[in-house]
């Protein structure tokens, strides 16, 4: 699972008011090369929850993203390459996503998070 997908997923357990962002427990992280597409990055930047992305990247061991970011940074090739790497090339392969309110763990196996809820969580 790419961190771009993580940037959209949220815990939807009954009673949880803010299930985003999910915390990441990383056991195995893999990198898969993707063609660099600066236009895509410029388009998607305003839709990204930046704080969640920075925290996710750090949780998988990637510290190159700045704490805050604004659109002016999209002029920088370095910044775009780091963003590209964080959003599209890093994959959480094994580990878990953890609900920020309840601590409930959603396991990630072979890169696939299992977000199914138990009966009493719906």
């Amino acid at each position: 699972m790419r961190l771009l997908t993580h940037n959209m997923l949220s815990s939807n357990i009954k009673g949880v008011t803010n299930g985003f962002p999910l915390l990441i427990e990383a056991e195995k992280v893999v990198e898969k090369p993707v063609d660099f597409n600066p236009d895509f990055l410029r388009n998607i930047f305003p839709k990204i929850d930046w704080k969640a992305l920075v925290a996710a990247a750090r949780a998988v061991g990637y510290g190159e993203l700045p704490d805050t970011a604004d659109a002016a940074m999209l002029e920088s090739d370095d910044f775009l390459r780091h963003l590209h790497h964080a959003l599209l090339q890093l994959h959480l392969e094994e580990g878990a996503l953890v609900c920020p309110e309840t601590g409930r763990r959603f396991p990630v196996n072979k890169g696939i998070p299992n977000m199914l809820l138990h009966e009493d969580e719906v």
Partner: protein
Amino acid sequence: MKLKQLESLLGTLQQFSNPKIELEQYPTGPHIASRMLYTAENSFGDVTDKVVADFGCGCGTLGLAAALLGAEHVIGLDIDAQSIEIASTNAEDLELDMDFVQCDLRNLGWRGSIVDTVVMNPPFGTRRKGADMDFLSVALKIASQAVYSLHKTTTRDHVKRTALRDYNAKSAEVLCELRYDVPQLYKFHKKKEVDIAVDLWRFVPRGV
């Protein structure tokens, strides 16, 4: 990529080995899948360089078709782990990247408007009434540009009315009517193969 080429690549994909009737698992054939995604890209520009979600992805046919047409990020969502496993193998065989999330779409937690386009071949709701409309309702909340979906032609008026009135769709348009081959997959199927008329829809969510 040419339509013919897309169709023949999709024809190589592995399909359900033990389809589950309660989930109405029917494969999306390469003919329909290739036309659906080809139209989405060539008539509307909704695929290349976009973020695409495949709802109820099953073996991944529609999502992989999107990836073949140059979608930047594709996510397949399905409730069934076995289907996702097949889809994931299919992605590897084609050397394509596709993310998967195992979830029940009816209680999916989701943030933001990152997904541009949702493509889906939902359960038609013959086993559990309204299943296709549940999918559509969620799709129109998550997509920011367009939703492409298949529904039985006999439900056309209902689909249109509900999408516009209840699901906040700005427009709902039937792009074409297709024949959907239903192979003899399940024991209760008496005939060897039947085809049913389905509509290929394009919905535009409000707020675009």
